[in-house]
């Protein structure tokens, strides 16, 4: 008589399974281990394999039908062989308890059915299973190339070839987490395990370190991106001949030092000159405020100062009214407080125009981003000796680049150019400041 194919019992609590679909038709030749149909339990879907080879003689249930465990669902045998009755629909009578006696006779040890077995049974062909068992390959690790990701013999062969070398648990974990193709991994010695270093070598991007995007870093970041997106930026570039500004600085250096104990730097000369130029160009000293443009009467110049992990802009108030000694004192104090994280919010508010001076670095020029809600910012590069032509003769001059970024919603090109031209002239003829 033909062999019965039973609804498997896949777990202690499994009482019935639902047939999802048949993979074979009646009359098909099937091999032991070959999947015949797919079933579904309350937990998973899985394939039921032929328990013997032969012809699939009879399917006892159709798709979607629910069948108790250990009840025949099909018959496999030789062509023409007889088989048992039609499906027994009396489900209650056939609940699993009644079938346990036979199992317990076989051994003294009570058998506890495995409950987690089902998870480690991916779809695979019998040949694939045989090879996998022979080589102790965990099929959950193998990628199937067949329909519904079914694992074929070829897949297992390939897996074995690629994984001939064993891996340490840590290496395996790193490889899994990073989707590293373990087949290509090489280890230093031929028969050693693949270790952490072997996997790390394969990781596409080199290791990086993460820091949180928060605090001052985030504030700077958000303000920059807001300004860049809301204000149409235009940047004008020019260069100023700093010969005379250098003279002025050398002249005043000692005087200011004896008065304040501090060294006058170009920053203060630039602040003073800018403040002077702003007086003549109030539109550059303005803020867009909803439906109106506020034109400021005070000239409060912010100075961009680098601090660990970010950037702050303390403000020198009424810069146009202050002399170079006072500016030196104030700007040095603000910068020091900024670096020591001692600025209060008053120190950083009320600015009407900002200067960002990168002259101490090897930077010739750059395009600064406006410090909102102001409408312009001046970027200052280093003073660099350059060959310039002057009335047909060639001279070497200390040149400094000035880059003015302005908000085109508030200021147009010509007035901005006018301001920058004036500023250049003041820096080239700083004695004008005294006029």
């Amino acid at each position, binding site marked *: 008589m033909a062999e019965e194919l039973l609804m498997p019992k896949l777990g202690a609590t499994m009482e019935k399974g639902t047939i999802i679909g048949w993979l074979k038709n009646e009359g098909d030749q099937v091999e032991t281990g070959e999947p015949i149909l797919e079933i579904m339990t309350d937990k998973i879907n899985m394939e039921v394999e032929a328990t013997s080879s032969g012809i699939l003689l009879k399917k006892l249930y159709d798709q979607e039908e629910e069948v108790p465990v250990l009840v025949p669902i099909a018959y496999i045998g030789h062509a023409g062989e007889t088989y048992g009755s039609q499906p027994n629909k009396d489900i209650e009578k056939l609940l699993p308890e009644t079938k346990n006696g036979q199992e317990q006779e076989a051994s003294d040890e009570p058998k506890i059915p495995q409950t987690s077995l089902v998870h480690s049974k991916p779809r695979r062909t019998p040949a694939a299973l045989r090879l996998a068992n022979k080589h102790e390959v965990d099929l959950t690790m193998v990628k199937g190339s067949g329909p519904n990701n079914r694992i074929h013999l070829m897949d297992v062969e390939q897996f074995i070839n690629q994984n001939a070398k064993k891996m*340490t*648990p*840590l290496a395996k*974990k790193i490889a899994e*987490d990073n989707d590293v193709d373990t087949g290509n991994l090489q280890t230093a010695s031929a028969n050693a395990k693949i*270790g*952490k270093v072997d996997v790390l070598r394969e990781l596409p991007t080199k290791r990086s*370190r993460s820091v949180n995007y928060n605090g001052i870093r985030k504030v700077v970041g958000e303000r920059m991106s807001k300004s860049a997106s809301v204000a149409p930026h235009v940047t004008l570039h020019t260069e100023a001949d700093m010969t005379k500004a250098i003279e002025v600085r050398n002249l005043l250096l000692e005087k200011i030092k004896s008065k304040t104990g501090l060294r006058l730097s170009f920053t203060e000369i630039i602040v003073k000159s800018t403040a002077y130029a702003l007086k003549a160009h109030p539109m550059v000293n303005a803020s867009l405020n909803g439906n109106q443009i506020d034109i400021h009467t005070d000239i409060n110049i912010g100075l961009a100062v680098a601090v660990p992990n970010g950037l702050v802009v303390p403000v020198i108030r009424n810069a146009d009214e202050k002399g170079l000694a006072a500016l030196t004192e104030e700007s040095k104090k603000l910068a020091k407080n900024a670096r020591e994280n001692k600025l209060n919010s008053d120190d950083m508010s009320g600015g009407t125009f900002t200067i960002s001076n990168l002259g101490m670095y090897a930077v010739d020029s750059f395009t600064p981003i406006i410090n909102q809600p102001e409408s312009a910012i001046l970027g200052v590069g280093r003073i660099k000796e350059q060959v310039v032509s002057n009335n047909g003769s060639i001279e070497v001059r200390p040149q400094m680049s000035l880059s003015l970024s302005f908000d085109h919603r508030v200021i147009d090109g010509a007035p901005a150019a006018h301001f920058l031209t004036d500023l250049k002239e003041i820096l080239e003829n700083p004695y004008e400041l005294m006029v």
Partner: protein
Amino acid sequence: MKNYEVVVIGGGPGGYVAAEEAAKLCGSVALIENKYLGGTCLNSGCIPSKTLLRHSEVIELMEKAKNWGIEFGSVSISFEKMISRKTTVVENLRNGVASLLRNARVDVYNGTAIVESNHQINIELKYGSETITADKIIIATGSKPFVPSINGIENVGYHTSDSIFELASLPQSLVIVGGGIIGVEFACIFSALNVEVTIIEMADRLISAEDGEAADLISKKLAKDKVNILTSAKVQELSQNENGKMVRLETKNGEHISIQADELLLASGRTPNLSVISKLNLKKNGPFIAVNKQMETSIPHIYAVGDVIGGWQLAHVASAEGIVAAWNACNLFKEINYKVVPRCIYSSPEIASVGLTEKEAKEKGKSVRTEMFHFRASGKAMAMDESTGFIKLIADETYNEILGVTMVGPHVTEMISEASTLILLEGTVNELEAIIHPHPTLSEGIGEAARAWLHKKKVHAMS
């Protein structure tokens, strides 16, 4: 003139292991030792100190047993007998090293070597001298206690770890300068023998290279045993008077005080023995000989291992380096790997650690999380009445990689190798947790720490 393929200078755990390995791997090997085989470790370090510690352990145990209902009559201590047992242990082991070298067919020269030129070595023997040549030379001359230049030191008799084992009788009081591993171990030995001990340490805590919580625990225990611990203290002057030694020092608070003691032990680090290579122009790494991962010095056929190259300055590290040097000297490539070096401090309770300390791990910027298991929660520790201490698991959250383990408590020096094994084989916290630990044991605490570590990770992931 006799020629050897490999000549090893120094018969300590770096040298004799290198000599034995080289004899197995290539041909003729000689070893030159100017004092005793076994080096510092066997003769004036690990072995004698552990022998004496055993005595202290028993005394401590007897003290404890009184609370359990086991009473003894009065206990008498014979320091002389203790020292003689120590000498027997040391001699037995020394003979063991000698026979090991004999079996390996290593020629042992008992004399003081000096490397004359790149391949030529002169040996000053007891009677006369001999010159031999070598294809390869392994320098394993070790180190000696560092004697700091303190005012008045030349007028005071002092001990170092080299001489303290030769004490004829037990002093009543002892000042130890240096609160590192050596200082702390001697404090444990002598305080258990009822010697009044004072430790003077410059740093702000004892054993500053190891885990802070471990050091705190030891400090508390020593203080409980009436050891006077002075940290952030500077010794300023030493003098001798009719009552013994006088140590003048400046304390943490800037006060100047004097401490009187019968004996003085200097335990403030070790300095390399370099006279053997004084005629060579070897590159240095600070005061030590510079080497690469193959233990090669700046002269390619000359190797150096052990304390003379600095680093961990541990016997088992010297042996590991000795093996690497022997392989390379015999033209077989091998590199040293310092990733898994266990460190043991035989204080009471013991400290053992492997891998990174918590501080090192965090400085490396890894996503580190630690988990502590306290022995007060261990049934075995309670049964033993030894529930002081903890196991600290230091692991990386990304892949559950075990970065290090620090343990304080009974028998932890024997337990640390489980962690070493896991780290070497690149097991993760998951494997550590999966190991079935026997119950009731102290070692099951390692599994508990792993389980708690993983549990918190899951809780974290869910929230």
